[in-house]
Each structure stands twice: as structure tokens, then as C-alpha cells.
């Protein structure tokens, strides 16, 4: 219970700070919205069927906007040495990881909640099905799990804005492949059973990387 209380305290702190500054959400929302608009204009001219490109556009918008949020969430910890303040606390350091992970998940989820209706309107396709939301949630969990670990790793490097996507994107390929395939299937009328293999891949990815990140986080934040 003590572990959970500390995780929730970190989430509370991140949400509280974000509600006051709106630094993370505003940059993520503007970036995601603009990239979807640009894709809409670009593909409206070239693609006959937007269903072919829509899954890719969705995941690209979420991924690129997510990078901004992941970076910002650790910049908050770097200002005035706050990360050291967390490391000094008498708690397992995986509590810091889970606190930051949940905070990042919340911020990405807010962006997705606004992105889905926007894309439905712009591309004239319904994206508000529970199965699609499930696929998006599982993909986002894996993305935030790895992204939180790599954001902690890259925050102390000189070129952190560049370093995070360089580290993160290659590791995210299984999530992109499974996510795009599953969303494509759903837009083509597939059922949950038809896309089960992609769901299983996302579940396995989430499980493996959350466990690995939990173990590795202590080494990542150590001097």
C-alpha cells in the first residue's frame, strides 16, 4: 500500500503541475492536431482511399506528440534538481518509474481522446469503436512504458530532444506494426477475433517491457 501511495503521489504531483502550467498537454495537442491536418490535406490530394493511410496517420500523430510529452515530463524533474529529490526519498525507485509512467499515459490518453473525434470528422470515418480504443490503449501502454524509461535515460544527455526518438522509435516497431495492422483490420470490418494475434503481440510487448523497465529504471537514474 505504501508503494502504491508513493506512485499516486508522483502522479498527483505531475497532474497538479500540468494543470497549472499546461506545458505538456498544450504542446502535444497542438502538434497532434496540426500533424493530422497536414496529413489530411496531403492525402486528400493523393490517396483514393483514406482508410489505407488512416491507421498510419493515427499512430504517427500519437507517437510524435507523445515524444514531446515524454521529454517535457522529465524536464520538470530536471529543473532545480527535482529528480535528486525523488532519488533521496525512502522508496523503491520503481515507484518513480510507475508514477511517471501513469502520468505520461494520462497525458497521451487525453491527446488521443481529442484526436479520435477530430480524425473521424476530418477523414469521415468512425474511429470511436470500443475495439479500436482497446488497441490504441494497449499500444499506448507499451509506448509510454518504453518511452518513460528512455526519457529518463536521455534527459541527462546534451541532445535530449533528438536522443529520445533515436532510442525509442526502433524499439517501438512491434507496437507500430501491431497497432497499424489491428486498426487497418478494424476499419476493414474485421472483428476482435480477426485481430486477436495483433492484440496478443501488444499484450506480450506491454508485459515484457514494463517488467524490463521496472528492473532497469534503477540503473538508468543512478549516477
Amino acid at each position, binding site marked *: 500500500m*505504501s508503494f502504491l*501511495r*508513493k506512485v499516486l*503521489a*508522483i502522479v*498527483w*504531483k505531475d497532474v*497538479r*503541475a500540468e494543470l*497549472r*502550467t499546461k506545458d505538456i498537454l498544450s504542446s502535444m495537442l497542438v502538434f497532434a492536431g496540426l500533424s493530422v491536418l497536414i496529413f489530411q490535406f496531403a492525402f486528400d490530394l493523393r490517396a483514393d482511399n483514406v482508410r489505407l493511410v488512416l491507421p498510419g496517420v493515427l499512430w504517427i500523430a500519437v507517437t510524435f506528440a507523445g515524444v514531446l510529452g515524454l521529454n517535457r515530463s522529465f524536464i*520538470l524533474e530536471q*529543473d*532545480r*534538481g*527535482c529528480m*535528486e*529529490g*525523488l*532519488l*533521496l*526519498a*525512502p*522508496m*523503491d*525507485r520503481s*515507484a518513480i518509474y510507475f508514477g511517471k509512467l501513469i502520468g505520461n499515459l494520462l497525458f497521451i490518453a487525453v491527446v488521443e481522446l481529442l484526436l479520435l473525434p477530430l480524425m473521424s470528422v476530418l477523414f469521415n470515418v468512425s474511429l470511436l469503436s470500443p475495439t479500436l480504443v482497446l488497441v490504441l490503449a494497449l499500444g499506448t501502454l507499451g509506448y509510454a512504458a518504453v518511452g518513460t524509461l528512455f526519457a529518463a535515460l536521455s534527459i541527462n544527455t546534451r541532445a535530449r530532444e533528438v536522443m529520445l526518438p533515436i532510442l525509442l522509435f526502433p524499439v517501438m516497431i512491434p507496437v507500430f506494426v501491431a497497432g497499424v495492422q489491428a486498426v487497418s483490420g478494424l476499419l476493414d470490418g474485421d472483428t476482435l477475433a480477426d485481430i486477436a494475434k495483433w492484440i496478443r503481440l501488444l499484450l506480450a510487448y506491454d508485459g515484457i517491457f514494463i517488467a524490463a523497465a521496472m528492473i532497469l529504471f534503477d540503473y538508468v537514474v*543512478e*549516477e
Partner: protein
Amino acid sequence: MIHVSKLVKAFGRRPVLRGVDLDVPAGQSVALFGPNGAGKTTLIRIIAGLSKLTAGRVTLGGQDIQRSGDGLRRYIGVVSHNPLVYDSLTAEENLQFFGRIYDVPELEPRLKTVLEQVGLTARRKDVVRTFSRGMIQRLAIARAILHDPPILLLDEPDTGLDQQAADMLRTLLADLGSGDRTVLLTTHNLERGIEWADRALILNGGRICFDAPTAGLSGAEFRRIYSDVVGG
């Protein structure tokens, strides 16, 4: 309370601490002096558990910092160069957050006491980014003592403070140093340091070169000793 034995710390091939031995009994205030690069901050960081040692042993209250679990960090409060507080939270929110991750019992009354102690009660609802350097430093001290740690590590707590803020800090440290609390502080201000502490140490070239009680030691005399030891 703090026992350091044959402590060595190297960054790559560059040794910073070259076999430091130090014993600080419970309730003693020790001021650690030394030129830039002497290893003062490194020593504080190792004792705080923020940095790994290369060789040697550090124990706090008899417990080895390398073998003990996360719980040992509860016994330490740290004020470092950085205040370790969040700019976008209020003073009260910062302390509420740190109180929760330190499992401080009866947090609200404790928070009230600590804010009064550092003179920030009137500004408790204000966001930290509106604070002056001195106020942020006082909040950093409030954060460090919130869980009432028996050991307080202060790394140049007076850096960047004007005379008025430094006077307030002196009064605060005198309160904190009274009783059973063990205080280890570093500072570049020789007079202020010997006024604050019971014992003075000079660290130079990764070794402790001077160790004496401050009682009866004048500022001028200590300045001369410091120049002799450090060679400045």
C-alpha cells in the same frame, strides 16, 4: 552517527576522494571546508546515497549505506546546490508531495510547523517560481527537515543568499543543530562556517587535512590555518 572509513571515489581514472576517514557522533555539527574540486559535494552525495563509492565504507547509525535498503534514506535530510523543489507547485503542495513520499505521519500539522519554522506560512499558497532565492532556500530546508531526519547534510546552503537571508539561515541552522540532530555542512564562508558548527574540517586534494573543534577558534585564526592548509 556518520562513520566514513577509507573512502575512495574516482570518476574514471581521476580520483576525487583518496581515503577519507571521518566520524561524526550524534548531535554534532560539522563544517566541511575546502577549495572548489576538493571533493566536498562528492562526499555529501555519497553519504546521501546519491553517488556510489569506489572503495571504503560509509555507515549511518551503524548501517552500511551500500547494504541497507531504501529505508535508510529516511534518516537523511539533504539541502544541496539545487533546492529540489518544483517551480510550478506552491510551497504547500511541494511539502505535501514530499511528505507523502516520505510517509510523514500527521502531515498537515507537521507541514504547518515546518512552514512556521522557515518563515513561509504567509506564502504557503504561492507558486515557487514567484519566490526569491532566499525563500526558495528556506523551502528547500523545510523539505529536508519535513520528515524530521536525525542526519542533515547541507551542501553550501548559504550560496547566493544576501546578508539578511544568511542571518535567517544561521538562526534556522542553530535551531536545527540543537538537540540530537547530526549536521554536516559545506560552505566557502569560513567565518560563517565556524560560527555554525562545533567542529571544522578542511578537505583538500581528496583528503581531510585539518580537523579541530571550533570552540575558541577565531575567524582570523581559522582563515590563516585555511590558507596554510590549502595553500592559497
